[in-house]
Structure formats: structure tokens, C-alpha cells
């Protein structure tokens, strides 16, 4: 029976040599073309999920991430007029950390002025963003290890908190307020202890009436500073001092 040997209607007749070549060409060329056309992708190690701000193991006060600048010390106290020096001072040194070679410390000394009323001197250990603000919203918590050594007697009314500054956030009321931040208090001890502060628990100070447009989340999206702060409630003649140790500051997923 030879009934099936008619060529394809409308198609040029197949000749043995040509079709053979075509078949070979297709069978060999197509996979090669396919290999050439494959997407050249590779997996890249994304690194740890947590974002390390600084573990201080490099022995300097420059954070591991370039998003934040050198750690620094700052004070705030009303000028008493009788003390030409700052009424509060701090220092940064490298000391053995929590299960690591280095940690960051701040020595501080706070005292009240000559005025009879209460004063609220503050010392803080801070890092600021040198360029753009940083978006913390992709993270769940700010974690760090902390240890505090206080003088005897301790500074009166001493309290500790962590502040996330966000000066570029839009305020609901366009008044003259220059500084916005979110605050969360901590209770350090004289032993190294890990702290994990949920970012969702950071709130604006209760005494601030000008709120952010968008709430705390708006501030977390444009963080421009991290501050570890100690403050006290001093009357005239009172003073206090101490050392704050900080290690392994991270943002946790």
C-alpha cells in the first residue's frame, strides 16, 4: 500500500537528504539554542536576617553599617552658671563586652544646679545617620545587650530609655517643634542582659502634643538616630554618676 505517501498539501516536497539534514539540525540545534537561551541566574547568600548595626568587635566606634555614623556621647543640662564645665559628661571606651572582646561604654556624671527647683539632666550614647534616614519598618525589634553601673547613691530619679529619632517625619501640626522621636523605656541591671524592644512598642513622648502624620509607623520609616539615654530628677546640690555598657546592637526580623 502506498496510499500515504502523498506530500503535505501545499508544502514543498521533502527530499531525503534535505529532510534528513533538517531532522539532524533540529535535534541537535534546538537543545543547544535552548541552553543558550536559558536564564543565567544564581542564588546569592542573603546573609543573616537580622541587620547588625554594630557589635563593636572591630575595636572602633564606627558602626558596622555605613547607614549610621560614629557613636558619640551627648549631654543636656541647664547651664548653672557656676560650673564652667558641662554639668554632665560622657566618655566612650572599648571594654570587654558580653561574651565578646569589645563593647561600648559611656561614663556619665549628672548633677543638679544651684536653683532650688528640680532639674532633669540627661546623658545619651547615640549614633546618627550621616545621610538619608533609615527605614526600620521591615524589622520587628531593636535588640542589644546592656549593663549599667551606677554610683552609690545612684542618681535620683534615674531612668533609662531608647529613642529613635525621626526629624524628617511630617507632623500633624506644622508648629516650631524641631525634634521628633519614639521612646521606649528599659530597666537595665548591673549584669549583662539582652534586651529586645519591639518596634511596635515605641511611642511618642506623652508630653508631646504634636503628633506625626501617619503615627509611629511613619517615624519608623525615617529613623535618623538611635539613642541610649539616662536621665534623672535632681535638685540643687544632688549629683550622680555611672557607666552604661552597650553591645550587639541589631535590628531583628
Amino acid at each position: 500500500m502506498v496510499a500515504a505517501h502523498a506530500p503535505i498539501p501545499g508544502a514543498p516536497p521533502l527530499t531525503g537528504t534535505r529532510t534528513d539534514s533538517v531532522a539532524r539540525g533540529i535535534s541537535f540545534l534546538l537543545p543547544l539554542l535552548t541552553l543558550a537561551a536559558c536564564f543565567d541566574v544564581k542564588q546569592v547568600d542573603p546573609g543573616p536576617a537580622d541587620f547588625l548595626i554594630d557589635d563593636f568587635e572591630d575595636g572602633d566606634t564606627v558602626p558596622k553599617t555605613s547607614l549610621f555614623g560614629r557613636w558619640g556621647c551627648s549631654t543636656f543640662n541647664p547651664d548653672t552658671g557656676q560650673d564652667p564645665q558641662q554639668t554632665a559628661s560622657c566618655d566612650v571606651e572599648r571594654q570587654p563586652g558580653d561574651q565578646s572582646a569589645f563593647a561600648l561604654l559611656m561614663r556619665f556624671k549628672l548633677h543638679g544646679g544651684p536653683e532650688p527647683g528640680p532639674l532633669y539632666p540627661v546623658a545619651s550614647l547615640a549614633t546618627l545617620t550621616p545621610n538619608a534616614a533609615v527605614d526600620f519598618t521591615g524589622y520587628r525589634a531593636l535588640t542589644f545587650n546592656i549593663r549599667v553601673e551606677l554610683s552609690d547613691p545612684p542618681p535620683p530619679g534615674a531612668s533609662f530609655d531608647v529613642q529613635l529619632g525621626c526629624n524628617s517625619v511630617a507632623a500633624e501640626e506644622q508648629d516650631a517643634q524641631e525634634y521628633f522621636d519614639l521612646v521606649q523605656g528599659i530597666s537595665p541591671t548591673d549584669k549583662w542582659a539582652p534586651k529586645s524592644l519591639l518596634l511596635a512598642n515605641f511611642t511618642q513622648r506623652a508630653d508631646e502634643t504634636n503628633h506625626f502624620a501617619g503615627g509611629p509607623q511613619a517615624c519608623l520609616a525615617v529613623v535618623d538616630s538611635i539613642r541610649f539615654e539616662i536621665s534623672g530628677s535632681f535638685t540643687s546640690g544632688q549629683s550622680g554618676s555611672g557607666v552604661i555598657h552597650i553591645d550587639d546592637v541589631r535590628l531583628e526580623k
Partner: protein
Amino acid sequence: MTILLMLVVAWTSPTRADPAAKPALGAEPGLRTTGGAKEVARLHYARGLELAGQSDYQAALREFTEAYRVSPHYAVLYNIGQADIALGRPQDAVESLSRYLREGQEQVPPARRLEVQGLIALLESLFAELTITTDQPGALITIDGREVGRTPLYQSVRLAAGSHKVTASMAGVAIFGRGYDPTAVGRVVTLAPGERQLLNLEMPAPTARATEPEPPGPALGVATAPSGNVSGSATNIIPLPNTPARDQQPEPIPPTRGRARSIVAYSAAGAGAVLGGVALAVYLSNRHRYEDWQNQNAALQQDPGAIDYHTRQVANNQLADSLSGTNHLVLGCSLAAGALLAGGITLLIVDRVGAEKEDRARSGALAGGFSLGWDWSASRSGSVLWSAAW
């Protein structure tokens, strides 16, 4: 069949030259030829011989036919007959050779006459007869693409042994052509040498007709010689009344092994083409994702300390995973497409080669029945000698 007929040419080659032809030119009574016409005919004839020597039998046939038209000489009919044989036209060959004997009469040498008579008998023994009827009159019958006439056909059709495609169409469009004719039915009929068959075709219902049939006309005989011409094969003739049509059922054409193989081949090639298209479409539709991955990868490499580096890298790795999956899909589809295409085409080649072998085998079997002892290579090399009529 063509090969067989070419072999016949080779077989007859020892007595190809017609010694009686040259002196007879222009001497035959009744021929109104001029000296110029003879010269023209001679030129055509010489050209025909040259072309035949080059195995260009079609062109040679044209030249011989033109030579005969310009200056009819019975000897040219011998060459025309051989060209017909070489071209696989046994019916035309029988006609030409019969005319050769008829017109040459006693001028044909006895040895040549015997040879030609034997050749005619051999050719006719390869014929079979097919009687075609339809349940409705007016159907245009086509055999192997040649129109035979409209039913009722008043004569059986003489055909060379082998397979033939028979179509009947009320609209006159063969289904084996490019178009589809809903009014047509088609059959493939295989005839053995000397066999007679009756083929009754049932036409589609009138509602399915695209056009009204033309009134039945006389058959255009392809082969109108009476069956008695099939000499030497009487025992092979099957009486018509007792011959049930081998292919009585109309549509569809009964699948043969070759047809099934062709269907598989075309299906495989088609599936391969589709899969190849799918692979290409998948690849093209994912190119923008790949560009996204490249851009993100470059950005991450430039800023490994970004606050959201981990998140973005994880997302980019997920994209890479997806693209790797796409790679597998494209590769799998392409390999399958290549295999199917190559397999389909290979099947087509095998099908074609098998068909040729089948034809050759059948031809060889038929030729062997006559103990012809062909020399295929000699015939193929164009060593056929032609009658030098002028």
C-alpha cells in the same frame, strides 16, 4: 511503476534502432511532407535523441512528438512509445507502439515487430481494469488527479497495477487536492496486474453539497481499450459480477500502515512545533523577569549594606528560583519539541523510503514474473538506445 517501465526500456534496448525507419522517411504514401518540414522534424528528432541520452525523457517526448507532428513518420512512434514507457505512461506507450505497428505495417522488420508486440503484451499485462459506479449520477471521477469523466461511466477504466487514488465529487473538486470538498468521497484502490475491480462510491447526502452537480456527461476515457487487450492474463481476470469492491465504504479513506505512520509523523512534528512554540513563548514572557533579576542583583551587589538587603536578596533569590524553574520548563519543552520534530521528520523519511522500496519491490516482482532480467544501472545511466529514424 515508473522504474519498472524504465526497466522495460532497458530490456528492449538491444533492438532499439529501427533499420527500416531511415529509408522510409518521406516515402510512405499519403504523407504530405516537404523537404523543409523533414529537416525540421529531423532536428527535433535529433534533439529528442540527445535529450533521451541525458535521461530527460519528458523533453525528449516533446521533441519526438513535435517531430512526428511536423513530419509524421511511423518510426518516430517507436521512440515516442519508449519515452512514454520511461515516463511511466504505459497506456500512452501501448497506444504509440500499437500505432507504430499499425502505420509501419510491413515496413517494420519482423524481428522488431515481434519485439514490439511482446512489449505491448508485457505492458498490457500490467494493466488492471476498474469499473467505477456511484449511487448518484453526475459525479466527477478523478483518478490520481486526472479527470476520467462523470458518472455513469460507460466503460471501465484501464489502469496500471498498483495503488490509485479515486475521487468522486459532485462539485468537481478532488479531495486529494488542496481544498476540501464536502461533496467528494475518496478511495485508494490497489490493483494487481490483470485484475478487474468494481468500485461503488456512495456520495454524501445532497444537503451536504456545496454546489449542484452538473448533468452527467460522457466519460473522458483515460483508457478505453477493451479488456480483451489484456493478453496473457486471462486467468487473473476476476469476473465483475463476482468481484466485490475491495473498498466499498466511502469516507474515510481506510488507513493504511503508511497512512497511519504519516499521521503519527505529522502529529509528532506538530506536537513538537507546538511544544517549541510553548518553550519560546515561556522564554519570551519571562525575559522581563530575568531583566528584573539582573537589575536587582546588580543593585544588591552595589549596596550590600542596605537596611533591606536581606529582604531584597531573599526576594531576588526567589525570583531566581522561579526563573530556574522556567529554565527547566523551557529546556524540557525544547528537548521534547526537538525529539518530536526529529522523530516526526524521521518517520516521514522512513515512510517515504519505505514507500519507494515497496514500489520497487512490487515492480521487481512483476518484472520477475516475465523473466525480463533487467539491468537497472544500465537503464538509469541513460544507456537506452533510440531508433535513428532519420
